[in-house]
């Protein structure tokens, strides 16, 4: 019995020793399967375009999939922290998974750039101190949406939201602003990603003839109610939330999408932006890289790409303080990320502050119109 115990202790100490190397390790946890797979897959693709060397240090990526499951997400993040000893985490994809790992990340004092909007983090909250967001906050979306609606003279809106965290968050952010601006919400209808029909929801939404219908969904599921609206002869305006901004959506939705509006990253119509748009060069660069490898450009891919950009910019500052793989390095990296200023990414410009860990303003947002199966720039913020 004694020998066994000694053996186990030995093995344990061996396991402890192996993890010490000086490379920068970036842990990635995305939902490349499960309900959020279409988002996670693109995010994972973009990671493979990330830098292999930052400031002379080799970069090692450790990538896990959480299958859009919170239990898995926590497990993966713990694994990244304690086994891979990562310096920074990119991910998770969805807001429930992000929420689930919040405690773990805070306790381990590891900076994390999450790819879901959900939680807006700041240094004031000890738990969310270590968390940064790569996508614009829901409020930024809602702001652009409402502005455009006001411009078009829309007074009444029905919302059709997919029944998941994304749909929920979009709806909440939208309603907050809409109430302020005097836009009346007639009804909020929900449907499931795998539903075979959204006719009933559409009929309900069309009651009272709203000026516009706002569809809040991510990925291809947004097409189902959209098509049903057209089939039922809805003549008003249709807005799609930013989550549907990918080529697959255009393919699945087909003709029905013509003339509808969509919130999205400037990335999607980067070529159409005037040259004075600050992040135009960076956006086009990413589009070129990504489209060469993976086909059509993707907003979600740009999130993880931007997250890596933020890390790339922050690492040199942190290296001055400590060596990668140490707690000091992680703390320094966190501070450096918080100090990000005017960093140009794909389709946005980041300026973080202590109270704002998102760092994206209206520069990272535009309204697009779908014409001939393509995105046409409809409206953008002043710059």
């Amino acid at each position, binding site marked *: *019995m004694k020998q*066994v*115990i000694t053996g*186990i*202790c030995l093995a*344990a100490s061996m*396991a*402890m020793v192996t993890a010490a190397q000086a490379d920068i390790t970036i842990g990635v946890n995305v939902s*490349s*399967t*499960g309900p959020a*797979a279409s988002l996670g*897959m693109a995010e*994972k693709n973009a990671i493979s375009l990330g830098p292999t060397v930052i400031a002379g240090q080799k970069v090692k990526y450790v*990538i*896990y*999939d959480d*299958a*859009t*499951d*919170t*239990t898995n997400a*926590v*497990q993966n993040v*713990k*694994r990244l*922290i*304690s*086994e891979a000893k990562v310096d920074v985490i990119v991910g998770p994809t969805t*807001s*429930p998974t992000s*929420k*689930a790992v*919040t*405690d773990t990340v805070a306790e*381990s004092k590891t900076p994390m750039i999450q790819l879901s909007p*959900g939680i807006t983090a700041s240094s004031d909250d000890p738990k969310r101190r270590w968390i940064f967001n790569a996508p614009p906050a829901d409020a930024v979306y809602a702001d652009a949406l409402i502005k455009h609606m006001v411009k078009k003279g829309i007074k009444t809106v029905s919302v059709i939201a997919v*029944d*998941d*965290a994304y*749909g*929920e*968050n979009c709806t909440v952010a939208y309603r907050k602003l809409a109430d302020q601006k005097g836009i009346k919400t007639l009804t909020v209808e*929900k449907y*499931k990603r795998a539903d075979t029909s959204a006719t009933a929801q559409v009929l309900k939404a069309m009651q009272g003839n709203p000026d516009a219908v706002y569809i809040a969904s991510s990925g291809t599921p947004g097409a189902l109610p959209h098509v049903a609206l057209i089939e039922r002869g809805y003549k008003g305006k249709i807005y799609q939330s930013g989550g549907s901004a990918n080529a697959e959506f255009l393919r699945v939705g087909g003709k029905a999408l013509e003339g509808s509006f969509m919130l999205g990253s400037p990335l999607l119509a980067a070529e159409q932006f005037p040259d004075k748009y600050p992040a135009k060069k960076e956006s086009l660069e990413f589009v070129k890289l990504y489209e060469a490898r993976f086909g059509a450009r993707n907003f979600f891919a740009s999130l993880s790409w931007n997250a890596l950009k933020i890390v790339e910019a922050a690492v040199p500052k942190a290296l001055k303080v400590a060596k990668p793989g140490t707690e000091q390095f992680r703390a320094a990296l966190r501070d450096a990320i918080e100090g990000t200023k005017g960093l140009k990414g794909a389709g946005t410009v980041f300026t973080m502050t202590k109270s704002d860990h998102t760092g994206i303003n209206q520069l990272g947002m535009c309204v697009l119109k779908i014409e001939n199966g393509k995105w046409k720039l409809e409206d953008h913020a002043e710059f």
Partner: protein
Amino acid sequence: MIRRGGFMLFLTLLALLPLFSSYYITMGSYIGLYSIVSLGLVLLTGVARLTSFGQAAFMGVAAYTTAILTVKFGCSPWLTLLIAMALTTAIAFLLGAITLRMGGHYLPLATIAWGISLYFLFGTVPALGGSTGISDVSALTFFGRELRDEKLFYYLIWIVCLATLWVSTNLLDSREGRAIRALRGGVSMVESFGASGHRLKNIVFIYSALLACLAGWLYAHMMRFVNPSPFGLSQGIEFLFMIVIGGPFSLWGAIAGAAVITLLKTLLQGILPKLISQTGNFEIIVFGIMTVMVLQWLKGGIWSLVEHRLPPKPAKPVNDTSSLAQRVQPARRESLLKVDGVTKAYGGLLAVKKMSFELSAGEIVGLIGPNGAGKSTMFNLISGELPLTSGKIHFGTENISSLRSPQIARRGLSRTFQHVRLIPGMTVLENVMIGSYLRTRDGLLAAGLRLNQATENQVRAEAARQLRRVGLADSMLIHAGNLSLGKQRIVEIARALCADPLLLLLDEPAAGLRYLEKQELATLLSELREQGLSVLIVEHDMEFLMNLVDRIVVMEFGEKLAEGLPCDIRSNPAVLEAYLGGV
């Protein structure tokens, strides 16, 4: 010794695991949680032959109950545990009450539906946090100290897990537990000893739901965050895979399964993306294939491979000191059973037509007739397994025509079966102990906490006494399946005797027995009569009955053909015609 050593080694490993990285603690905690759920599922699936895909949903009920009550109302987590358990019991009881009377596949189908609707409900109701979930669930407190350290939580989970293992083991080895294990011999067998099959099934289902509830409650306080995704149907299915792969017939199989699936999942998530260029939760393909393969080739799961190599568990000693209370046998010649104009119709077909006969205390009566004459139907009418169409049956002075078999059993009627119904995997002694179901009162709580040892000893002693009475003292600790048919029939008689009956009903006890075995059986029955027992035997072997019984009732075409002393019956021309036939 090996068993004990293995267990100690297991405990040591558990205790030392937190020395490794925090990741191993998480894995260990998950394995512990899943083991708790799987333990319940083993009882449900492996022992009671029912199953549920809704265990994850029961976890969800508890997790959400505690999350809401602690976050929104500031309740103590210990109070919420009680509330969650009450809620779980209510839901499980309802589901069980609705489905358990029907075929075995209705419960799992209902749990699929309920698992899905609950999952969607969690995701939809705004008060439950919607799909985003509820964060900042309060930590558990022990004597005013918050349990936030994951190492401590890991130990807590495993203490709970080992405790449930202990309780489950105790339960299986108790009065109710034996009856539950006996369910696989058919509900009618268990009911003939006064247990209600429906109630037993419901108990197992509720118990397994409660274990899931406990795990869910722990989960919520460990993660301190709940959202619908871990409580979906696929998690419920994964639990089932755990026990199928781990081994559904052993409690340790649950822990083995939980460990194997959890570890394998992690391993596969590392390996599969390298093999398949795409990412995806492709481990489900592997789990599915593994499950089908285990079902096809290794019914006992992984644990059966281990169990195979272990020495058998030592038998508990029989200490024959105290005894169970016994009924007073009625005086001889007193009327014990009176069948009065009983008819049983199946649709238009009359299986039994206006049968009437009587049996007095201390008598052996034979009910004979050619095959298909309606003897077995008559028998099942008396024992209450079939309802009568018309007529009356009196047991003693009481009319039992409308009672069901457990109620009739309670009044002192014990039976054997035409096709022997012993549980092959239980020892002869344990099989006989099932017979005493109605003679003790031990509840589930006492059984689970091992407070039932005094009565258990009594029951064991009583079963041993009955086995000695029928001359099977040497075979007590053998598995019942290893006995010859003749001995199995005698074990059935011992089991019936263990219920301390006033009347013993034997259904074709001599069928398939060798000549010598028949003689031994006849001797045994004569002896029992000497001891004051009354017996009704359904048989078609006249030779066997001739020198044994006091009176014979002959049936043909569902009707009484003749009744009288054996010697008269033998020369009755109508009986001869019925048996020999002619063209």
